[in-house]
């Protein structure tokens, strides 16, 4: 079944994008092509991992986000803050300060994402005991869930159908506020996200009708706001007393770091971070090459959420700070007292629905037709040079051949094929240039001394 209309958080600013190949070369699902001088993302192949955004040399890839003022549509404005937000600030900045700044920004309530991590991981341990088909794969990382849907559909049944703490916490805090007498329509829950994938997951949820989260705020935006406010405050030395939040256990503080889940599960558990590493491992897992593993924690970013594409601070320092913070909270209960009172409610509200395959590898739905197309691809590969230079606007020769068969490109897009065609007088130099301009944009090959690395790169005229 082919679904369409997937929402993606990653967008390309066509004014800033000058058409290079950086994003296209790092995309783990080969979802990017260059057309008319700018990068384009294939919506049905993109998993919102954000690797393209990291690789872009001119910040042309950005995350589409909710307007911050959207929070004021609600009377009760809840900020759901993950531990990695706190981990980005230098140690002298206290959690209490950070949360009080959140309130000053306009939130009426500030809650911690990992508040439900203890009860979720207990449910995961219990569920994993019952499962025969091992390893069980965590559903924590939304980019990984999408990756499995697209590239590894045969492993979908092994993905644990338990909400990650982010969603479980949203459900829990909403319920508590409703029980306090607040009208459901007045509650707006906003997640401060370190990644693009969670934005996409909220806008078009997987395995759920509707996300329990009402909006997503880019962590970079909040980071800058907090930094500015704290900075001005330190200068005037009028530190507000801040507020106290329920303490998190060390395990909850470290939950979103690499090993945060694997260290809590039973049996042989592995934690793998960075999406290309995950793909390499899942390839092996898919043909039963990996044996005897009980649980897999898979995260798309290096250093997990500390390395999220919207995390402003250095990922290693963020990890270090959270580990230090966790040590200070030794002895704090893994399941906070207030949650224990809601354990029955939580037990009934932590499942996620069926995860549908979104396999986009197939050349055609019909197998006979797919075979015909594959034959064409193989035939085209006889002519393409195998240099994988990407000058055709596709990441490699194989992708170009597949694009041609899908009627999305043509053989003459290859600059080496062009040379051969010119040699046999099948293509004029002028025509060849037109083809190149179609891919790389008009006047793309004209002299331009302001481009990155050129003579006048930094010499901006006033």
């Amino acid at each position, binding site marked *: 079944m082919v679904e369409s209309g997937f929402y993606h958080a990653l967008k390309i600013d066509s004014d800033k994008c000058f058409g290079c190949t950086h994003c296209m070369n790092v995309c783990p699902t080969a979802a990017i092509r260059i057309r008319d001088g700018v990068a384009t993302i294939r919506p049905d192949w993109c998993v919102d991992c954000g690797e393209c955004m990291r690789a872009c040399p001119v910040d042309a890839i950005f995350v589409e986000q909710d307007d911050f003022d959207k929070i004021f549509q609600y009377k009760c404005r809840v900020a759901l803050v993950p531990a990695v937000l706190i981990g980005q600030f230098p140690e002298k900045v206290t959690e209490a300060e950070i949360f009080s700044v959140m309130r000053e920004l306009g939130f009426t309530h500030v809650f911690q994402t990992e508040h439900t991590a203890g009860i979720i991981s207990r449910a995961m341990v219990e569920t994993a005991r019952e499962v025969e088909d091992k390893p069980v794969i965590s559903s924590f990382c939304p980019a990984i869930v999408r990756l499995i849907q697209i590239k590894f559909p*045969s492993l979908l049944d092994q993905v644990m159908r338990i909400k990650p703490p982010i969603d479980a916490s949203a459900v829990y805090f909403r319920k508590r506020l409703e029980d306090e007498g607040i009208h459901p329509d007045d509650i707006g829950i906003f997640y401060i996200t370190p990644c693009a994938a969670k934005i996409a997951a909220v806008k078009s949820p997987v395995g759920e009708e509707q996300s329990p989260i009402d909006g997503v705020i880019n962590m970079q935006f909040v980071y800058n706001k907090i930094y500015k406010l704290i900075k001005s405050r330190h200068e005037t030395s009028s530190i507000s007393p801040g507020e106290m939040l329920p303490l998190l256990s060390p395990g909850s503080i470290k939950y979103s770091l690499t090993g945060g889940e694997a260290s809590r599960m039973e049996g042989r558990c592995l934690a793998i971070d960075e999406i290309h590493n995950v793909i390499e491992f899942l390839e092996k897992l*898919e043909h039963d090459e990996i044996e005897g593993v009980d649980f897999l924690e898979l995260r798309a970013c290096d250093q997990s959420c500390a390395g999220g594409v919207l995390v402003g601070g250095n990922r290693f320092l963020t990890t270090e700070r959270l580990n230090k913070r966790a040590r200070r909270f030794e002895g704090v209960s893994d399941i906070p007292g207030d949650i224990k009172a809601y354990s029955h409610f939580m037990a009934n509200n932590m499942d996620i629905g069926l995860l549908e395959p979104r396999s986009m*590898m197939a050349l055609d739905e019909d197998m006979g037709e797919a*075979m015909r197309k594959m034959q064409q691809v193989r035939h085209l590969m006889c002519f393409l040079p195998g240099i994988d230079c990407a000058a055709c606007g596709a990441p490699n020769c194989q992708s170009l051949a597949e694009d041609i068969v899908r009627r999305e490109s043509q053989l003459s897009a290859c600059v080496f094929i062009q040379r051969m065609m010119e040699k046999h007088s099948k293509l004029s130099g002028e025509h060849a240039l037109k083809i190149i301009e179609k891919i790389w944009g008009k006047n793309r090959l004209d002299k331009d001394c302001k481009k990155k690395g050129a003579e006048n790169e930094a010499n901006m005229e006033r």
Partner: protein
Amino acid sequence: MKFKYEIEGGNFSKAGNASSAVKKILKQLNVPPATIKKLVVALYEGEVNVVAHAWNGCIYVDIDPDRIFVTIEDEGPGIPDIGQAMQEGYSTASQAVREMGFGAGMGLSNMKKNADLLNIKSEVGKGTTVEITTLLK
């Protein structure tokens, strides 16, 4: 549609490459994920068998819309008693191979479980041919 992959005996770091390549093709051909998984598990077992026991070998894959037919052919010691080799837990793998995590003696029986049809021919001192058929309809 036909494909051929060569297997190098004794090179465990490359064991699985042919299975991966076949898997990618089957995904592109829109073969159902459960069918791919079964075939690739059987194929991987076969590939590892060649790497572990034989001197060299070849995998031939023949795909049509009704069925996938895989032949794994090797030049190697052969199997003296196929019936015995089919039993779960029976293994002739050396200690060194077992230490690498291979050779638990589940290979042929696991292949049988994951193939719609399995046919083994072997000649001692010459080699073994394993045929796996996976029905698509």
